[in-house]
């Protein structure tokens, strides 16, 4: 064998080895993430697919009739009770998400621009209540707003009202207040992150070009932090639409949301297909609502500039 042939032989052997190495970078990554990925696939995707499948079947006493039908969707969309529950859930989640973002923006702004050396302490202080039990936080609102609650007894003690008011608890507003409180931290974080990314020299440039603090906020800071505002809206809106605990504890008759109906179908009512259809509809509708809000905000954001 000539030296040249030897070398090209060695080179091709290298090419093969390099090939397996390249594949192995891909393969190592896939192999490493696959336990977690498979877990999410089996315990999230598969169950959601099963729910979607159920929504096209019917309950036949204790068994499931697996003939394809849209009957559950017809019921879910035409029965006034479900329509009302769905509408109220959407109204509540929309209101709550807008309120939380509205309340969270100034605090995120304050931490980002005036937090100084204590930024992470501020964030920690704000997120701590969020980490503690959701159930307990909702419960404390019940204690505050109840007939014998803190608010009533406090107002009576101050002589503002003569007898306990029943208007605080067990209505839609109680649900909105409680949820807004519960999701506050969730809205602060994404807005804070997007504010941190704003290059401070851009604001100086705006000032240099003649903008006052309010104009430079509207023309520079706000448009640049829209992505944070949008993700804050979504991260609050989507989970709250299916909230179960809050309407149960503080919502009363007027504050019932769709999750209660879903729970009833799966537990007591034992009509899985109807419960499944309600779940699918809730998810679809909230996704459409979220998408259209993102669209509207982006359009509005373009106008401001």
């Amino acid at each position, binding site marked *: 064998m000539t030296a040249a042939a030897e*070398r090209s032989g060695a*080179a091709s052997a*290298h*090419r093969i080895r390099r090939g397996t190495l390249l594949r192995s970078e891909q393969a190592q990554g896939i192999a490493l993430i696959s336990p977690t990925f498979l877990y999410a696939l089996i315990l999230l995707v598969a169950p959601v697919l099963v729910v979607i499948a159920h929504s096209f079947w019917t309950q036949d006493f204790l068994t499931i009739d697996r003939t394809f039908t849209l009957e559950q969707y017809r019921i879910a969309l035409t029965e006034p009770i479900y329509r009302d529950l769905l509408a109220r859930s959407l109204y509540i989640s929309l209101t709550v998400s807008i309120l939380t973002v509205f309340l969270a923006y100034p605090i995120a702004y304050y931490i980002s621009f005036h937090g100084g050396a204590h930024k992470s302490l501020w964030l920690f202080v704000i997120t701590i209540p969020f980490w503690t039990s959701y159930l307990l936080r909702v419960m404390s609102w019940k204690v505050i707003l109840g007939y014998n609650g803190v608010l009533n007894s406090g107002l009576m003690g101050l002589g503002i009202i003569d007898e306990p008011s029943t208007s605080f608890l067990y209505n839609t507003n109680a649900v909105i207040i409680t949820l807004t409180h519960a999701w506050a931290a969730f809205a602060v974080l994404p807005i804070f992150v997007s504010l941190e990314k704003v290059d401070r020299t851009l604001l100086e440039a705006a000032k240099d070009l003649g903008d006052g603090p309010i104009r430079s906020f509207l023309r520079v800071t706000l448009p640049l932090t829209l992505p944070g505002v949008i993700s804050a809206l979504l991260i609050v809106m989507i989970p709250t639409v299916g909230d179960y605990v809050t309407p149960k504890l503080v919502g009363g008759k007027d504050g019932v949301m769709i999750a209660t109906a879903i729970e009833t179908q799966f537990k007591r009512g034992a009509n899985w297909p109807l419960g499944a259809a309600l779940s699918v509809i809730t998810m679809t509708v909230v996704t459409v609502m979220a998408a259209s809000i993102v669209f509207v905000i982006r359009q509005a954001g373009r106008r401001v500039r």
Partner: protein
Amino acid sequence: MPDRPMIQIAGVSKAYGSFKALDDATLTIREGEFFSLLGPSGCGKTTLLRMIAGFDTPTEGTIAIDGQPMDGIPANRRPTNMVFQSYAIFPHLNVDQNVAYGLKRLKLGAAEERRRVDEALAQVSLSGLGKRGATELSGGQRQRVALARALVMRPKVLLLDEPLSALDKKLREQMQVELRRLQQAVGITFVLVTHDQYEALGMSDRIAVMFGGRIAQVAAPSQIYQRPVNRQVADFLGGMNFIRANVVETNGTAITVETAGFGRVKTEKPSGFNDETRETTLGIRPERLRVLWDDAKAKHEIAGTIVDRHYFGEITHFIVDVPGFEKTLSVSESNNFGADDLPVGAPVRLGYDPDALVALAD
């Protein structure tokens, strides 16, 4: 044994998909040599260094260290050690523990390990700082720890990946001297990657200049500086005047070219020069042109007019317009003799040595 090969790189290429980071590099680095890989970022110098260290695998070709082919041998079993660009000082260990990191596996015994750590720390002038935490070190100290940590392993080859780029100018210059001294003291082969031509020129025995994944020239610093093979190399190693020249004749290793001003010049033919080419470039460094005062004479001279001047303290840079040249010439003149007095617009005569003229491949 002088000139014994330490690293033999034979036809090594590295491809990422269709992008070739390194293209068919062949190079021999000698034992005990201070060798630099010099080039702009993305020229493949770091890729080559990482393949010598064993962090990357060549797509083609082989690398042998001290006669041993390195195919399939992982980084932890190669007789090389590396000083990383970021220094990669283990932040959870103190200086002693960092330096002893690799020794732990050799199971030398506590006393011998201690002795070698102390010796290495002394080599880099860090004696007494062994208990200092990794996070309490200055940039220069981190660099020394990285050096000690690699040297303590007594490698056959020490690899340095832009080791001075994170230091400020003063410290960088000081460390250049120290690195060179250290290399001569320990006698280990050093391979340095840098994009700083002064660093490479000042420290190395030999330099490989690289562009776009290819090795353009391998030679001693003075050779690289004075006789660059092409315009790219010439340009990367400091300023050079380029003049279009007609090829008169080529003959073996010699080439004769003709330009306005310099006239006919016979010089070395650059390697890889295509004899069919009719036009090429003649180059001369700005400091090889000198201003002729009053009636001073030189054997070879050209005349022109000063069109601009830039004062740099120890030197002044003149831009001189020479009739017949497409572009102006740069002349750098020491201010020892009052060159800073020459005004713009003054006529000037420039003397030169024909040896300073280099024919360059494009």
